[in-house]
């Protein structure tokens, strides 16, 4: 049996993505970011969020998508998973919807250029809107990043 969950909807390019609301701490407008040298390429740096230093990553960069300019729609979504706090830079975030977990289907191999393992599934909302649910634990999985980095070198 599934259940109703609340989902934050954000955009990368033309695709819409979802993160369960209880994993999201806050959504912030763009903040000054301090660059951190010698780290993963998609890590933009760190921000000061009310006295706590939090690393932010560009979600486009993380998924290997082309990184765009930041606009006044750009948002930082602060998520907390496995005791880690991380900010995601996304193109825009402007919706919270109710979703029944039964409506989330297993994703096809590749959705919008993102590997299936980063996804929990795809849900059809409305007539022709597709919502891609992110698997946060996998997105923030560090061991895989290290492999990825060493391949690049």
């Amino acid at each position, binding site marked *: 049996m599934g259940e109703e969950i609340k989902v934050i909807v954000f955009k990368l390019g033309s695709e819409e993505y979802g993160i369960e609301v209880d994993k999201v701490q806050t959504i912030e407008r763009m903040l000054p970011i301090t660059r*951190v040298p010698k780290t993963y390429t998609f890590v933009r740096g760190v921000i000061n969020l009310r006295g*706590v230093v939090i690393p932010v990553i560009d979600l486009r960069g993380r998924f290997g998508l082309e990184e765009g300019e930041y606009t006044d729609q750009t948002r930082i979504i602060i998520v907390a998973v496995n005791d*880690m706090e991380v900010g995601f830079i996304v193109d825009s975030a402007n919706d919270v919807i109710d979703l029944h977990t039964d409506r989330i289907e297993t994703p096809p191999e590749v959705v919008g250029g993102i590997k299936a393992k980063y996804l929990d599934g795809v849900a059809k909302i409305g007539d022709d809107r597709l919502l891609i649910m992110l698997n946060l634990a996998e997105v923030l999985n560090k061991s895989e990043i290290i492999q990825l980095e060493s391949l690049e070198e």
Partner: protein
Amino acid sequence: MDMNQYLSMFIDESNDHLQSLNENMLLLEGSPSDLSIVQVIFRSAHTLKGMAATMGFEDLAALTHQMENVLDLVRNEKLAMQDFIFDTLFKGLDALESMVQDITEGGEGKADVSGIVASLQAIVRGEDLSAAGAGAEAKTSASDPSANTAIQLDEFQYSVLNQSIADGHRVLYVDVHIRENCQLKAVRAYMVFDLLERSGEVIKSSPSVQDIEQEKFEHSFSLYYITQMDPAELEQQILNVSEIDKVTVMELDQESLQQMNEMGMASQEAAAVAEAPSKEEAPETTATSAAPEQAVQKQAPQSSAAKTPAKSSGATPSRTIRVDIERLDVLMNLFSELLIDRVRLEQLASEVQNHALTETVEHMSRVSSDLQDIVMKLRMVPVDTVFNRFPRMIRDLAKSLDKKVDLIITGAETELDRTVIDEIGDPLVHLLRNAVDHGIEPIADRISAGKSETGTVNLRAFHSGNHVFIEIEEDGRGIYRENILKTALKKGVVTQDQAAAMSDDEVNQLLFAPGFSTAEKISDVSGRGVGLDVVKAKITSLGGQVTIYSTPGKGTNFSVQLPLTLSIIAAMMVKMGSEKYAIPLSSIVETAIVRKEQIRTVHGNKMVEFRGQHIPLISLSRIFNIKDFNENEENETEIIVIHKGERLAALAIDEFIGQNEIVLKGLGKYLPQIKGISGATILGDGQVALILDPNVFIR
């Protein structure tokens, strides 16, 4: 009943009592005939027993009770302390400690202590025959309800009662019977005591208060009581407590008090006489065998006892409250926020140039730096909290290695940040074990080297500047350069060429190399492969350093340097293009400006001259890929000379901003360790600046 809220208090206090038990047992071992120490030990054990019983940890209470019995005999001079009694009591303490540890970790505090209990009971019963037997019997007979008409008063209690009568107080003898079918007689008894203590003082009760608390009485108890109340009224009040069957209140004058007391004495003696005769001849032998043992024992540990008088006198009660460490952390965090705002306000004030505002901000700065001092002090804990377990450890260790060692602790009152204290214990244990195991020679070797039989380990703590030093110095065999190099070569830590070129200091540092152990024999004490490298890693992670000073044949000194605090540091803020970095002031030697032509290239590395020597010039902009700054394009470069131990290097930077107090923050768990960056801080304008770890740049 929900005991959880009391549990942490219980654990804290139990640990305090165990600690004081340990300390005083060691003192007592030094002077076994000092009964005042026994009194202190007895009181600690007694309180511990009471607390454990209240909290329902029965094994703990039972064991403490047995230890208390032994101590009681000693206290009343019915038993002389002997070596094996000490050993048994120490074993008991260890068991208690592990039980409390278990409770701390959420366990039930249960343990099989029957072995220790049995030997304690044997001490009470058998080993010391006449007096102990009589004493124990007298005690049980006193707690027997049939004997409740006679309570024996000691001299002190007797004189208190006598004095009270002389001063015009009423001294009452109260006898209370609780109904036989009463379910919670301890509770009823408690209610009676509570009632009594509201309007007077209970001098002595039979059975004793703690036995009553544990329901170790039949259905009645009696007591001496000083009050101003009318006896009849008191009787009525006690009867008002439910399930009280009968109360007799008798007012005493000096004469009747004396009579009562004599009665008590008589019944006690009667019990003693009844028990004693069968075991008459034994005490002689015990006493004589005990005497020389005592004499031997006195020599060695007494000196250490004599050398730590400051510590025992330092135990005077201070007015303190216990505060959860987490609350202090919150306080610290909030204060950090304030500090950031302060810096911001200072900036704004200097921009606005308003006189009144500047003055206010300056005042606030002064107040907040005072506040900072206090907040930091709150987190400071004397190193004694770590040191206090060492005397016991060294005693056991020396015994097991068959060596004689005096541990002399100085500066135990020196304070360190709580976070450092929590981490420093294990490394120190390791260093001390090393000192006793590898440093101090076996007795025979010491004698042939012309040293005294007993080795000395000095454990010192002291402040110096912004650091605290902890030194472990022994007068053992010292470190021989050749031995270290031999082992290092064998284990492939260094090559022959390297070895020849090394200074003595560098050779000593080899001890900290991973997988290095010089002891030829592997003992269970040290030399288990994990060695000094772990110690060094730990101390380095705390921002500290270890240095070794050694004179072959004379001894070795391990000197540990630790920062006072880990959370707020003084730093130099610098600008690199558009980016800002903080460099801890503790690593900075000085700042300077060099012209382009002063920079030389040696083997492709840039060097600058500094006070007659050439030191490497390190390009931060290259290491950190800083895009909008490159010192090569400048005619004059600002440099910061940093040091790591004796070695120096210069960092090329763009612009100095100034010196600041900064609050250390982590970079978050997501990012991996970044070489050269130890953390982040938040600047007055709300932006994050990274903190450099200059040690990384000097190899």
